[in-house]
């Protein structure tokens, strides 16, 4: 046993060798994208497949090595690197980092190419490259008849590179590179079949909606930069002491690493709470600069709320979730990778990464939790009435992301991250399963026109069933544990002054669980159970090739196996046991815990869920699924052909039309802006400025000129007379002046 533990604790490649090569993880897919994009046509399909897959596979291998290295404790010395923002002896444990020098610098501001892999980003690395590889493999078969394969794989590799940048960045601005990079790749992939205007439009909608979030993200970044500057000016030694650093070290690190480095932000968060006895606390007003007069805590809340808007754009939360369902216009593997497993979870990752800042603002946390809960509920309700299998899965993604946001908002970061991982597995499995269904049924997406696939597509059916159980939250699959961990945290963590949030969000969470079980069961039942629909496009579905079923199986297995992470198997520092994943992420999340304790903003609860809680959740999920089973297996088939009540029809119509949110946005935002720009162009630009002022000036000049023309009589003697009169006038004036 000890031998095995030692084996896992000794990284095959020592961390100090690996750290300078971290860039390779990003560079490999980027190179793949370049080769596929530029030489794809020359290389041919097989070579492109090989290059794209091996680029991601290479990144996966490196990620595994890196992940391994983050747990390296060979010779009793845990892998670590010195924290540039802390005192000399301050080290960041269980993490690798490397700084590749300045990206750009101006004045006090500086951004470095710094990569950081700790347990959080290490886990995500594995998910991105691992699931990414499976989806690449799946795509080789899924896109086998498509002409644009080279472009497709180039975009997909580009996406992986951007996503890896996002999670490995050690500062906000570099993270933003990945953040926008994934948005760009997503834009390209959603609009992959660009000849269809609706698909191109969906891509643009996704990008512009994301840009609204990025707008908020940018402003929040600027506020954070200002905040760091103010903290650095105002903090006294006690504040720095509480943060585990000194002014000299902090300033030096600021000048070397820049103000947006996550480690620096963490130190600031540790210095800010009231209890440090220092000069700066959350209520301290900022003395000088553009933020003069505002308190640190107030600015932090605003920044976090802006980050929430940014995250809402990327992670499809209210009010910016509308792009995600339309994003299903892209190829299905893309939906699985980008719009389910990785990109959309970037918001959750961002908040986990900045957890120590987030816990300083209970208001922002409560807002995040409530936004998450409302989004989740709304998306679940819309999913009830969607007939497009991909749309249902899209809304279910929105809903699941809402659950993660609830977790983040209530301070149970590890569970949110765990749910992110398990969700990546089962949702990718569901999407790929849906893709397999489409592939075998002539691209049919309407679940009403499928049915009975259970016997024709056995592998797809089996894996889809497992994933459905996982997302529904059926014991003992991973989704059950991760979701339950979130809800447990939601129930027992309390935000300072906002206790009601826990109860409200928890209650909503139970409703959402039931809804999830209902619509997922509905999709499953209509697609796989019952009889084959008479409207089906092809008479007999065919099972997909191994390229497609193998990823399904792997993901289904992972959906089950990932449950281990939620088991309380590891010893807690203060006695008792704690879930594996909490233990695993504790090096990353401990600063947030200490900050929350010091600032008294969040009461974090560490207990493990009781059996009763498990049972409740399980019963709720079963009842939702059971209701769906009753309705779709027995109730509706019996009533087929009978007229439906008016109220039921109206409810269904509203839900089917997504509560008319798209129309609302069109009406209150898009139309007014278009109208405004049109009016401004026609009235202000063309009429007022150009016609009245510019051409008006020219016109007046021309008119005055032509009026003065008539003074030109051509009579030389008249001119001479004018001269004579003027001369006389001058003489007379001079005489008067002299005589006076």
């Amino acid at each position: 046993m000890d031998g095995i533990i030692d084996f896992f604790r000794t990284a095959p490649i020592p961390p100090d060798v690996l750290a300078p090569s971290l860039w390779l993880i990003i560079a490999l897919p980027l190179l793949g994208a370049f080769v596929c994009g530029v030489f794809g046509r020359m290389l041919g399909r097989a070579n492109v497949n090989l290059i794209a897959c091996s680029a991601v596979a290479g990144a996966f291998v490196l990620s595994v090595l890196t992940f391994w290295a983050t747990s390296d404790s060979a010779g009793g010395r845990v892998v670590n690197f010195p924290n540039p923002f802390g005192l000399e002896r301050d080290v960041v444990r269980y993490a690798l980092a490397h700084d590749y020098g300045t990206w750009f610098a101006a004045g006090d501001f500086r951004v470095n190419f710094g990569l950081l892999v700790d347990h959080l980003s290490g886990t995500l690395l594995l998910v991105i490259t691992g699931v990414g590889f499976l989806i690449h493999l799946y795509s080789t078969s899924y896109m086998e008849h498509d002409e644009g394969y080279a472009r497709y794989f180039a975009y997909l590799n580009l996406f992986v590179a951007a996503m890896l940048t996002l999670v490995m960045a050690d500062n906000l601005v570099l993270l933003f590179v990945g953040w926008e990079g994934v948005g760009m790749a997503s834009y390209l992939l959603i609009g992959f079949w660009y000849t269809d205007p609706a698909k191109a439009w969906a891509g643009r909608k996704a990008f512009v909606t994301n840009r609204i979030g990025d707008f908020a993200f940018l402003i929040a970044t600027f506020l954070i930069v200002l905040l760091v500057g103010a903290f650095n000016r105002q903090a006294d030694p006690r504040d720095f002491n509480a943060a585990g650093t000194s002014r000299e070290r902090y300033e030096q690190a600021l000048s070397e690493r820049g103000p947006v480095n996550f480690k620096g932000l963490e130190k600031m968060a540790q210095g800010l709470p009231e209890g440090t006895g220092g000069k700066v606390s959350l209520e301290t007003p900022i003395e000088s600069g553009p933020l003069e007069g505002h308190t640190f805590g107030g600015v932090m809340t605003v920044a976090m709320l802006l980050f929430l808007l940014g995250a809402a754009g990327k992670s499809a939360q209210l009010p910016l979730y509308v792009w995600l369902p339309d994003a299903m216009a892209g190829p299905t593997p893309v939906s699985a990778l980008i719009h389910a497993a990785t990109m959309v979870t970037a918001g959750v990752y961002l908040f986990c990464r900045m957890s120590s800042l987030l816990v300083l603002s209970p208001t922002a946390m409560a807002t995040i939790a409530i936004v998450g809960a409302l989004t989740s509920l709304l998306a679940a309700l819309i999913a009830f009435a969607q007939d497009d299998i991909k749309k249902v899965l899209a809304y279910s993604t929105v809903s699941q992301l809402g659950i993660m946001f609830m977790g983040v908002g209530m301070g149970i970061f590890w569970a949110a991250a765990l749910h992110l991982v398990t969700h990546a597995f089962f949702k990718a499995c569901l999407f790929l399963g849906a893709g397999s269904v489409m592939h075998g049924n002539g691209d049919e997406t309407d679940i009403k026109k499928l049915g009975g696939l259970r016997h024709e597509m056995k592998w797809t059916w089996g894996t889809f069933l497992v994933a459905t159980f996982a997302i529904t939250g059926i014991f003992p699959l991973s989704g059950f544990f991760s979701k339950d961990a979130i809800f447990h945290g939601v129930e027992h963590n309390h935000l300072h002054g906002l206790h009601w949030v826990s109860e409200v969000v928890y209650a909503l969470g139970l409703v959402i669980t039931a809804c999830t079980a209902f619509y997922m069961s509905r999709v499953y039942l209509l697609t796989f159970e019952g009889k084959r629909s008479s409207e089906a496009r092809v008479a007999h579905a065919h099972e997909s090739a191994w390229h497609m079923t193998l990823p399904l199986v792997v993901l289904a297995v992972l959906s089950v196996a990932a449950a281990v992470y939620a088991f309380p198997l590891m010893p807690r520092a203060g006695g008792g046991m704690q879930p594996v994943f909490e233990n695993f992420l504790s090096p990353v999340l401990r600063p947030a815990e200490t900050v929350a304790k010091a600032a008294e903003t969040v009461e974090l609860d560490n207990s493990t869920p009781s059996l009763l809680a498990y049972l409740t959740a399980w019963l709720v999920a079963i009842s939702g699924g059971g209701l769906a089973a009753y309705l779709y297996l027995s109730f509706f088939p019996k009533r087929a052909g009978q007229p439906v009540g008016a109220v039921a029809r109206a409810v269904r119509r509203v839900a089917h039309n997504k509560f008319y949110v798209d129309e609302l946005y069109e009406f209150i935002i898009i139309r007014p802006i278009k109208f405004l720009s049109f009016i401004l162009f026609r009235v202000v630009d063309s009429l007022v400025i150009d016609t009245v002022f510019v051409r008006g000036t020219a016109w007046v000049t021309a008119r005055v000129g032509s009026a003065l023309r008539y003074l030109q009589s051509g009579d030389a003697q008249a001119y001479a007379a004018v001269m004579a009169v003027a001369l006389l006038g001058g003489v007379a004036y001079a005489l008067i002046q002299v005589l006076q």
Partner: protein
Amino acid sequence: MVPITYYLLLAAALFCMGMFGVLVRTNALVVFMCVELMLNAANLTFLAFARMHGDGIGHVSAFFVIAVAAAEAAIGLAIVIAVFRSRGTVNVDDIRTMKH
């Protein structure tokens, strides 16, 4: 010695006569002669002041004016002849084409 006032009065009278001629006569040749008269009025003023100050600057100016007047007369007469050839008249009222 005659006071300078008389010279100046004479010059002013000459100038006014010349100007009057320029303004009212219609024959281009007569207008020219009147211009010469005005120039000579100016010359007289120059010389009178030169005499009064006892230096040569006025004389220099007068010579300049004479030279310019000669050139002007030459070019002016040439123009008048050209106009007469093309239009058959030297009446300034009939050659108002440079208008509007």
